[in-house]
């Protein structure tokens, strides 16, 4: 992390010699931007010694060209105008390094996601904008300084959060590789959703039969420490060096337990069993299911008669031959030092009781697919007999209703849950297997049998006589006397209404993000998409990495998926984590603060805003010291310092001001200067580009690592140079990638608004936007909203703002 104190002399003393490469990206950029014209324009910029356009700069050929030019033309700065730096900055940085140029002397202009893709039909404006973006990049490039990255050792231990099949697979893979793994599970036993399912599609394997051996492997593996009935409460640190606090709830039963079950027989308390979705009962002392790992029983202290140390009932203790029961056990907190974290927290199932037309919860014979799994399971409450709850009889006519809580505007779950179609087909075959005469109706929207072997299973079900009817029922009504159900709706293939009588209806419920995923999101500073699932670093190329370094996803936490996909992703996540740990060290970006001692007054403002406590004030020496290893690299301290005694390496005041000045040199009164944070709003703007959301071309984006880096003087300078509007954008409050740095952003913008109001300026010209990486549309629509504000701004108002913020120009 350390900024190299004395940069190599070549970089410093030499006159900047900038090479500019404008990429066509096939037609992705060249389709709307005249790349040749942009390159020609770039050649006229100061210090540019070489400017060219080429089809694919990221290709081997393109990269070789850059390397050759660095040597031949003695380039000491490189600017590539192509896609987002979030995609190819590492690629080109490596190219520069290969040619002997420090990678911090490279700069990128994003003319694809932020230009050609969002201004597809306005070639002229897109080209003009691209020129501006290149100009900004060149202006910054001139001021770039070489830097060396420090290496941080990686602790060769991993934390896996969640013990479903994905967490189990990740833990086993890592443990088999030879790394120590801590597997934390909230429930008393690992196994997750897969442990409750009867059979798996498309092979009809028994679910618990294939899972139980894996669970037992986890229990016995010498490299795995299983922490069941535990939750992660705090995570601190950074890639390679996380410290996680895990709180272990007491089981009140020691490891001596032989799981004989004598205790449960005598326990007087009875309550619905969560594992069986409330279809069966359990006692206050219980085990989740027969194959549970750890097998140790536990006491549910919310129900047990013994509270606050008073032993009221000791029946279980008396029944226990091995004296394994201890009512006085206390919760404990363990602190784990780990290098990598795998998030495998899984998904919840949709609760259909919010759909009144299906009557779930009111009508006894309407059940969910998860309840069905327990009923058809030989280990379930009915011993594998499919019975309907109203009279415990075997149903002769059964209906499955698809897409309950999936692909629906009405319930706000717009996505397909991936597993329900095949699950229903499997379930219908299971019924046919046991009771061949049962009539089965499946009401669907589309059947999605996309995977290996899925179509065969679908065909088998149709051959077996399962009736597939396209069109979901609009309503389910009950015959009060017989408790039979009437399903009414429209068959959209035959354009006729149906009214079908069945004994039992199964709602094929979708998957949704865990209700407590916000906790994990906050602990690990992750992002979630609009559906609530965790967002990967790149949807195609880094599908299991989180944006936070050292954190990976496995299973349904990232999106709904079946067992096979979960296991595949789990192994991928384990491999990704393994790569880091095998290397044993990681380099951290050189974006830490630079401290100018002579300007510092030891006021301590920077110390207060640092989210990482990386700055300390020595009152006696009147000195601020920077602990670079602890620094996260947000730059909030630099924005807070009123004396210019701190700045952020690679995002210095000078570099950002150069970018602002480049934007505002011409036609400033028509432009919006936007500051975007690398993790949320910049990624959101990228997402707008990837999704081709069109917005007005008058916005110019300046990237900072965090919105907390945006010093008030940057905004003031933009206005002082005549900008029509300024946007400050960052992650949502509470979601900041740098813990809480964006609260400082809010404070600063509010102070600026106040100043604008006091001086009679329209405060709408300064816009504060919180947008996540998934909210491309929010970014695009905000730019659209600001357009009329920009058009309304009069020359007098621009002039007034220039005067009010005049002081900001003095800093040069």
């Amino acid at each position: 992390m350390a900024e190299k104190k004395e940069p190599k002399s070549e970089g410093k003393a030499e006159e900047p010699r900038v090479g500019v490469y404008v990429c066509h990206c096939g037609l992705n950029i060249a389709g709307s931007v005249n790349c040749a014209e942009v390159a020609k324009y770039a050649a006229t910029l100061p210090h540019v010694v070489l400017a060219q356009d080429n089809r694919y700069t990221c290709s081997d050929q393109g990269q070789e060209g850059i390397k050759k030019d660095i040597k031949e033309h003695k380039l000491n700065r490189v600017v590539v105008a192509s896609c987002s730096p979030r995609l190819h900055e590492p690629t080109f940085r490596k190219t520069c390094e290969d040619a002997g140029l420090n990678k911090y002397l490279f700069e990128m202009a994003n003319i694809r996601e932020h230009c050609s893709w969002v201004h597809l039909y306005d070639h002229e404006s897109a080209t003009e904008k691209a020129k501006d973006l290149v100009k900004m990049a060149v202006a910054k490039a001139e001021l770039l300084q070489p830097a060396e990255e420090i290496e941080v050792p990686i602790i060769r231990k991993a934390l896996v959060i969640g013990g479903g099949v994905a967490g189990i697979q990740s833990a086993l893979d890592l443990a088999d590789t030879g790394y120590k793994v801590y597997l934390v599970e909230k429930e008393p036993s690992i196994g997750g959703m897969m442990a409750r399912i009867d059979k798996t599609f498309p092979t009809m394997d028994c679910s618990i039969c294939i899972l139980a051996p894996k669970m037992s492997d986890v229990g016995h593996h010498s490299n795995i420490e299983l922490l069941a009935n535990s939750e992660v409460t705090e995570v601190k640190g950074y890639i390679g060096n996380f410290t996680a606090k895990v709180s272990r709830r007491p089981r009140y039963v020691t490891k001596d337990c032989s799981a004989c079950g004598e205790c449960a027989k005598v326990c007087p308390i009875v309550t619905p069993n969560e594992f069986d979705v409330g279809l069966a009962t359990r006692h206050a002392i219980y085990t989740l299911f027969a194959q549970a790992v750890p097998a140790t029983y536990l006491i549910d202290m919310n129900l047990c008669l013994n509270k606050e140390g008073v032993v009221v009932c000791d029946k279980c203790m008396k029944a226990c031959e091995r004296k394994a029961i201890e009512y006085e056990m206390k919760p404990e907190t363990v602190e784990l030092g780990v290098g990598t974290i795998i998030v495998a927290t899984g998904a919840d199932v949709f609760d259909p009781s919010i759909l009144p037309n299906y009557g779930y919860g009111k009508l006894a014979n309407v059940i969910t697919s998860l309840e069905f799994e327990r009923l058809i399971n030989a280990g379930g409450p009915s011993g594998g007999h499919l019975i309907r709850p109203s009279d415990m009889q075997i149903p002769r006519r059964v209906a499955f209703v698809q897409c309950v809580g999936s692909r629906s505007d009405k319930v706000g779950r717009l996505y397909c849950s991936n597993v329900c179609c095949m699950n229903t087909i499997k379930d219908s075959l299971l019924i046919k297997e046991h009771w061949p005469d049962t009539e089965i109706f499946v009401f669907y929207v589309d059947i999605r049998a996309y995977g290996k072997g899925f179509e065969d299973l679908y065909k088998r079900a149709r051959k077996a006589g399962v009736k597939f009817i396209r069109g979901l029922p609009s309503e389910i009504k009950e015959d009060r006397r017989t408790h039979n159900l009437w399903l009414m709706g429209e068959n959209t293939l035959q354009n006729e209404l149906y009214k079908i009588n069945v004994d039992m209806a199964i709602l094929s419920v979708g998957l949704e993000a865990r209700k407590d995923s916000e906790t994990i999101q906050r602990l690990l500073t992750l992002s979630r998409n609009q559906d609530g699932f965790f967002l990967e670093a790149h949807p195609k190329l880094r599908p299991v990495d989180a944006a936070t370094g050292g954190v990976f996803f496995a299973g349904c936490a990232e999106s709904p998926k079946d067992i096979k996909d979960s296991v595949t992703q789990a192994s991928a996540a384990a491999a990704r984590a393994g790569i880091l740990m095998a290397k044993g060290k990681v380099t951290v970006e050189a974006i830490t603060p630079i401290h100018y001692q002579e300007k510092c007054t030891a006021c301590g403002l920077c110390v207060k805003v640092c989210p990482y406590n990386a700055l300390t004030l020595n009152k006696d020496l009147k000195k601020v010291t920077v602990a670079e290893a602890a620094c996260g690299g947000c730059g909030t301290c630099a924005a807070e310092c009123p004396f210019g005694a701190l700045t952020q390496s690679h995002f210095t005041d000078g570099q950002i001001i150069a970018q602002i000045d480049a934007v505002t040199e011409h036609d400033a009164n028509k432009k919006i200067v936007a500051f975007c944070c690398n993790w949320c709003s910049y990624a959101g703007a990228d997402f707008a580009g990837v999704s081709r959301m069109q917005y007005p071309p008058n916005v110019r984006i300046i990237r900072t690592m965090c919105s907390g880096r945006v010093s008030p003087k940057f905004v003031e300078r933009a206005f002082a140079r005549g900008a029509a509007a300024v946007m400050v954008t960052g992650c949502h409050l509470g979601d900041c990638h740098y813990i809480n740095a964006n609260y400082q952003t809010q404070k600063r913008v509010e102070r600026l608004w106040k100043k604008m109001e006091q001086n009679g300026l329209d405060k709408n010209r300064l816009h504060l936007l919180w947008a996540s990486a998934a909210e491309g549309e929010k970014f695009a629509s905000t730019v659209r909203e600001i357009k009329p504000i920009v058009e309304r701004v009069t020359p007098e108002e621009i002039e007034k703002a220039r005067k009010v913020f005049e002081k900001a120009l003095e800093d040069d």
Partner: protein
Amino acid sequence: MPERIKHGPLDSKNLKPSKATIHLIKDQCKGCGYCIEFCPKKVFEESEEINARGVHPPKIVDESKCLLCSFCTAVCPDFAIFVTEKKCEERC
């Protein structure tokens, strides 16, 4: 774990919770009220009547709630309460 338990458990009808007979020796009671205070199921409350020792002994509100933990027997300083399990003939 879905936290929605809509239908009652299927086996709840077959459950035969043990049923208790609570025996109160009223005249032995000195009215300390420990049984009323400590019963986890709140089976007792103070009665209106006055016993031989001139105090209000407890009375049983709902015998069916008793779980047979016998904590009342344990806390009673005067050995005035004990609980027995009903024989099968009575409850089957």
